[in-house]
């Protein structure tokens, strides 16, 4: 079995125009904010849609790491390890 070395990031439909239509992309491990910065190099514009200029997660975006809301973890400082699954979702749903 191949060793898992990457973090997998799920991209919601409204952001897929920025990822060439891909619903999932991968990145090397690191802090969430570093992973997002790396993704922004590969997919320009992605970071601005997810984070505010000062680095806080945008009000209408939720980010989950292995199904846990990062607001219950360390927010943008949350460390992502190989094999972690990140899901980026528009916040306004449900209720």
């Amino acid at each position, binding site marked *: 079995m191949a060793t898992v070395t990457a973090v997998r990031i799920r991209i919601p439909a409204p*952001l897929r125009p920025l990822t060439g239509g891909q619903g999932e992309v991968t990145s090397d491990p690191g802090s969430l904010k570093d992973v997002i910065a790396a993704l922004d190099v590969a997919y320009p514009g992605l970071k601005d849609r997810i984070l505010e200029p000062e680095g806080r997660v945008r009000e*209408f975006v939720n980010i989950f790491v292995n199904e846990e809301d990062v607001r219950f973890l360390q927010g943008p400082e949350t460390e992502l390890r190989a094999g972690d699954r990140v*899901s980026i*979702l528009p916040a*306004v749903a*449900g*209720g």
Partner: protein
Amino acid sequence: MSYLQGLRCQRCGHTLAPAPVHICPECLGPLELVYDYTAMKATLSRDAVEAGPPSMWRYRSLLPVGDAPVVDLGTGLTPLLRADNLAKALGLRNVYIKNDAVNPTSSFKDRPVGVAATVARSFGLDTLACASTGNLAASVAAHAARAGMRSVIFIPEDLEQAKIIGTAVFGTKLIAVKGNYDAVNRLCAEAVDAYGWAFVNINLRPFYGEGSKTLAYETAEQLGWRAPDHVVAPIAGGSVLTRITAGFEELQRLGWIPETKVRVSGAQAAGCNPVARAFQAGADRVQPVRPNTIAKSLAIGDPADGGLALNAIRRTGGSCGDATDPEIVEGMRLLAETEGVFTETAGGVTVAVAKKLAQSGVLRPDETVVIYITGNGLKTLEALGASCGPSATIAPRLEEIDRVLGSAAA
């Protein structure tokens, strides 16, 4: 005809034609509906409403359904009960109960779902879906059955039995998810991209929410075309409170009711109080919590419209309080014993918080107060458990009555 012009992002103002979408493609902000109020004001009237059917559909011209045949179970125009006994118990003078526990599936959810099911059919979608804490589940399943549509419903696995049975009976695909509502909601927010379904509270959310405005329309009409001074509504996702607020403002804009200020206060369970906490802390953003409360229908730790609800409360001079589990049960019993209305735990929350707001002087004796009761007590019998049972068990002999009632028999 429809007065709906399109969708607009509440954050960046980007506009779109009507479509089953809830998120701005530019900034991911929430979308809202835009209506032509000038045309509405010129062509619609209170008289036409009063001549309409005895249901929420008497307001169909104000709803985003156009001329489509509506998916209707006979929802709405529920009783607005003057509640003098409850008022006395709360130390207030003018209290009304809007009893939405008596809708077709026993909660207010039939209002937003009636609109969402109708709109889904207009968009050519054949499957209704939702993430639900129980009340929405039953309503979506019932409306899908009525409309001849398929339904797929996701709930947390620990819901009350009446909510599970009361949903499954409609022949839906009911999927119990191992996790709380926020986990169910996250799963469904991912599923909406993968399946072409009408998730009523996700991709149809801008339309769905509009149905709850009829709670305000009916209240105003039942009060003789005027708004109350103060309303108290429960907060789960925050949609019903914001739409009640918007409903009164809309009627004022149409000139159908006087332009008086309506204070809007919110009620949450202490075990799931993200909006109450943000209100009391003076915070600008609502932070999520992990829910732990018997009020399962309000157990949304990350409310989608929490920020909007917070703004509505602050803007109108209302307040936001919370109630512990024992206070919730006490609230259910207070309403039942004073007014003969049996509400579920969510209504217990609303009554208990109204009591606290009256004690602290936020609800004032000179105000006309409307308390929104959004769900039926038969759905959450577990919350009362052994505290409600026979006063005595007797043999079928006359003297036995005297024995157990004593002097009270006279």
